[in-house]
Every structure is written in structure tokens, then in C-alpha cells.
């Protein structure tokens, strides 16, 4: 991790809310590389991220936390290794309305296995207000088969508070004795 430049990675399938999440917390309007969807994605949304989303959080002392959102389509997975290099942790967003969200879960856990092993993971499940099934308990069961006990919350990716809770949980997973000075 280069001094003064730190990365937090957002990943997940198409439409899970990565762009919205970065927009919700970034200091500056996020840079997106959305393009008109021409493949199957167009059934889900009009535009999609073809390279990445990017936002920043300025920290005390002039340092920056860079927020990167990976493109959702699997064909861009070659970029994921590059993006995660030097990252402090991974936020995985899953869309509960997808046909098989557990397939998505397993896919991303396997894809980022190396990164998760050396850092930490927090999972946000979106669209639960539209589709309550599967419930979070079923996700926890899936996680157990991976031997993982990570933060897993219902979130609305547009809500700043939800995304902050998710990131804070990730930070405390990295260091439970972390404390903000009063």
C-alpha cells in the first residue's frame, strides 16, 4: 500500500448497487465509466460500468481513501486483481432479486479468495425490500460452508448510513480494538 493512497474495493454482480454505494459516500462526484448496455445487462439496467467506478474520501492529514467499484460483468474479471492490489478490504454487494444470489456469493468469494484471506470482507444484500427471500439467515448458512463469519447486512446502496455501517463493520473486523478518539 503506497503511503497516503489507500483503496477500498466494492464488488458484486451487475445491478447490485456498487455505483450507488460509492456515490453515497464519495466526497467528490464519482467518476463512472458507464456505457449503454448492449448485452444481457440491458435487461437489468440501461447503462452499466464497463471499467470501474471511482470516488474518494479525503482523510485527516491530506491522505485519501480511494473507492473503486469493479465492473460487474465476469468478462472484466481480469481487472479485479489489478484493482485489489493494495486494497484494505472488500465490500461485496449482492442483489437479492437475482435468480440465484447464492451462486453470485460463491462466485465472488472464490474470485476474491486471495484478497479476502489477507484482508477482510463485508457483505451488503440489496433489494431485500423488493424480495425478502432468501433471508439473511440463508446467506449465513452459505458463509459457514466457506468457514467465514463476516459482517452481512441488509442495505440500500443509495443510503449513506447503510454503506457507512458496512464499511465500519469491515474496519472493526480488521481491528476490533479500533477506537475513535473522543
Amino acid at each position, binding site marked *: 500500500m503506497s503511503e497516503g493512497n*489507500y483503496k477500498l474495493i466494492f464488488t458484486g454482480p451487475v445491478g447490485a448497487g456498487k455505483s450507488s454505494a460509492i456515490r453515497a459516500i464519495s466526497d467528490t462526484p464519482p467518476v463512472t465509466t458507464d456505457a449503454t448496455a448492449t448485452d444481457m445487462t440491458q435487461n437489468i439496467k440501461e447503462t452499466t460500468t464497463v471499467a470501474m467506478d471511482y470516488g474518494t474520501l479525503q482523510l485527516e492529514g491530506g491522505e485519501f481513501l480511494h473507492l473503486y467499484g469493479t465492473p460487474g460483468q465476469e468478462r472484466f474479471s481480469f481487472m479485479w486483481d489489478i484493482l485489489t492490489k493494495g486494497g484494505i478490504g472488500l465490500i461485496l454487494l449482492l442483489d437479492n432479486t437475482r435468480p440465484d444470489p447464492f451462486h453470485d456469493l460463491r462466485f465472488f468469494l472464490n474470485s476474491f479468495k486471495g484478497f479476502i484471506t489477507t484482508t477482510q470482507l463485508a457483505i451488503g444484500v440489496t433489494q431485500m425490500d423488493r424480495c425478502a427471500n432468501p433471508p439473511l439467515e440463508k446467506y449465513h448458512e452459505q458463509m459457514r460452508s466457506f468457514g467465514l463469519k463476516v459482517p452481512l447486512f441488509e442495505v440500500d446502496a443509495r443510503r449513506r448510513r447503510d454503506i457507512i455501517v458496512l464499511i465500519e463493520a469491515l474496519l472493526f473486523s480488521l*481491528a476490533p480494538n479500533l477506537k475513535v478518539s473522543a
Partner: protein
Amino acid sequence: MSSPLDNDPAHPLRVTVLGMEQRAYSTLELFFQNLCQNRYLISGDGQADISIIDMDAARANELYNEHRGRYPDRPILLVSLTEIRPEHEKERFLAKPIRPEMLLSSLEELSRLVHNGVPRTRGLQEGVEHREGETGTGQPPPEVESLQGKPGNQLHTLPSLPPVLDVVAPTPRRKQKPRPAGVAGDGGETPEPAPPTGEIIPLFPRSRSAKQDPPESDRTELAEDEERERHKASFLYEPDEYLQGYIQQAYRIAREERRNISLKGPWRPIVLLPESREIWVEQSHAHLYALSNMAIRPEDVTVTRLDPQWSPPKEGGSLLPVDQFLWKLAVRTARGRIPAGTDLRAPVYLYHWPNLSRLLPVQHGLRIAALWTRYPVSLMEAATILNIRPKYLFSFYSAASAIGLIGHKSRTEGDHEPPQPPPQQHEHQGLLRKILSRLRGRGR
């Protein structure tokens, strides 16, 4: 025949409350408004007919002396966890946790002492006594009994109770086969037919009020432990005595039987729906949460199975996730305490992270969850590791326990395993602190 001095809602008795924390104060206010039909009204110090003083408050004695000095003739109700023997003839003592019927009884007794002992209140308590008679407990509370023999203190012939108290009325229980605590229709040796809809299910088979006095030989020892017990009482509570415990038990039965269960008591109907993991409440959430600190007797609660076709009415009431409701209720009930019987030294862990984005925030909740999902450590060790006040851990523990997320490692079990290394400082601790600080709106 009613008296012109009857305490009807148009002429409520004014009660001032001193030394009570805000939540208990609000509970009392709601209690007067909803369950007493405004026969009592919280008022300022100067206008009050009766005073209630929480003798567990900081500087309570000072508060009491000052108040008594200013109002030498005013009836005062002293409430406390430990017994107080009132020295003034116009004082009564009420033990915590405050039970609604005992509070009513005490207030009615004191109300008779207002205005030179002429009774003013319409007998809410009489209605409660009548219902106690129905359940066979028979005797009125001692305070009431002691007054009945005194001239000028006889109870009036009273009109019937207001409808809201009908909800409080205990329902006679049917005789049932002995079953494990709180579990109805769970079979046993011989399979039983599916339990019928509408059958009343016992939640707490033994009446908690039926505790026997200890034998004489044990009393000295108990007296010696009194100080320790008093200290313990400050951080322990019995969830089963409160709405929290009733909902937990009813929900457990609902899940085991996969049936919708209705819970009735001193509140409007509550229905637990295990299939969707939801709770339907007719009353406003605020009112229910306000009941969180009120001790409730098992006799006042009935649990019944509902028709499998039951669905929440389209209008009135609201549905919400049962975990969300129970978590909040437990936080409100626990108020920084843990359920009685919790082993402070047993290592604790979480089965998984609670859904903290949708649950009532508990101070340091994320840190506690992060610790207990990775490191099984006791409550006391956790307080040391996280360097936080135990009351925050206790609140979290009680809430997580209420929704079934707490696991315990026995201390013996722990002895065979290598001790868990405590969490180390992260190599980028400074950076993480800066990010956290930034997310919380500081440090930029």
C-alpha cells in the same frame, strides 16, 4: 353509589415524579394515560397531590429530605430495589420492578390520604382484586387489607372497570398435561394430534409469585449475602418477567409448532408469524416499547394458537421483522443489564453478525460484534479488550441473546483448548482510525 370526590378522568389526581430516569418517567406517563384512563396525571412539583420518589436515584436521600421538608403533609410513594420502611404515616413503599397492580394499589391507598384522608379515587384496584379472586389468589394486597379496617377508609361501591382493563384481566387456565417449560404440544413419548386452534398455551408453568420463603437456617446466610445481591440486582434482570420474555417464549413456540400464535396481555393483541419471521402488533410500537420495563404477571397473559389461515388485517396494526422488534425491546428492557443467570466468566461468541444496519444501534455494537464473531471471550474480558463500560456490552449481550445469536463455551471446554490470542493492533491502525473518524464526520 359514586362520590362527588371520585377520581374520574375529569378530576385526575396530580402526581409528581422525582428522581426517575427519563424512560421510566415516560413509561409511567403512558401507564397513567392508557391503563389508568387518565385518572392520574403527571404534574409539576408544586401542584401535585401525591409524590413518587425513586429512592435509587443519585442523591435520593437529599431529594427526599428536601421534598418532605417542603411538603410535610403530602402522601409520598417511595420506590426502590431494596426495602424501605417508611417513617412518615403518609408514605408507602413500593418494591421494584414495579408491577402495575401494585402501583395502582399504592396510589389508591395514598389517594385516600389526600385531603385529610377522604377518599377521592374510583377503585381501579378493586377491579384488579376482583379479577385476582377469579384466579384463586384470593387475598387483596396487604396494603389494601390494612386500610379496609380503618374508619373512613372503606372502599366505595364502584362502577365496573373501564374496558381497557378488561384486557388486563387474567384468563382462567385450563388444566393441561405437564409439559416441559413453555413448550406446548411438542409431543412427548406418545405422539399427540395437532393442537387445536384457540387452545391456551402455558408459557411459564410455575407461577413466579409462588416462590417459598427460605427455611430459617438459611436466612442468616441470605442476610449475609444481601449486600452482594443488592449489587447484582443493579446489573441483572429477568427477561421472563417482562414483555420481552413473553414474546421470546411465544415466538419459540410459534417456530417449533410452525403456527401463528397470539399473545394477549396488558396490551392490544400481538401475533407472531414464524413463517415470515414477523410480528404483527395492533398497538403503536411506542406504546409497546413503553411497556418494556413493566413487570407482567403470567396470570395476565394468554397465548393461543391461531387459525392457520389467519392473516394480518389490511387496516390497523403493523408488521415488522420479529428480530428487529425483539432486539429493540430487549435493549429497552435490559437498560445496560444482563439476564439473571448469565455467567460473567464464560466465553461468549456470536453465531453470526446481527443485521446491524436494521437494528436499534447499541453503543459500540459493531466493535462488540466484530470481537465476538472472531474471539470467544467472556463479558468481563470483552470489556477490558474493547476498553468500554460493561453496560454497553450488557445491552448488546441481552439484545443478541433475545434473538438467539449468543453461544457460550463452557469454561471446562475452554480449558482443553489453546486460549484465543487477543486481537492485535492492525498494522494500519492509524489509517483505519482516520477512515473511521472521517466516516463519523470528523477529521478531514
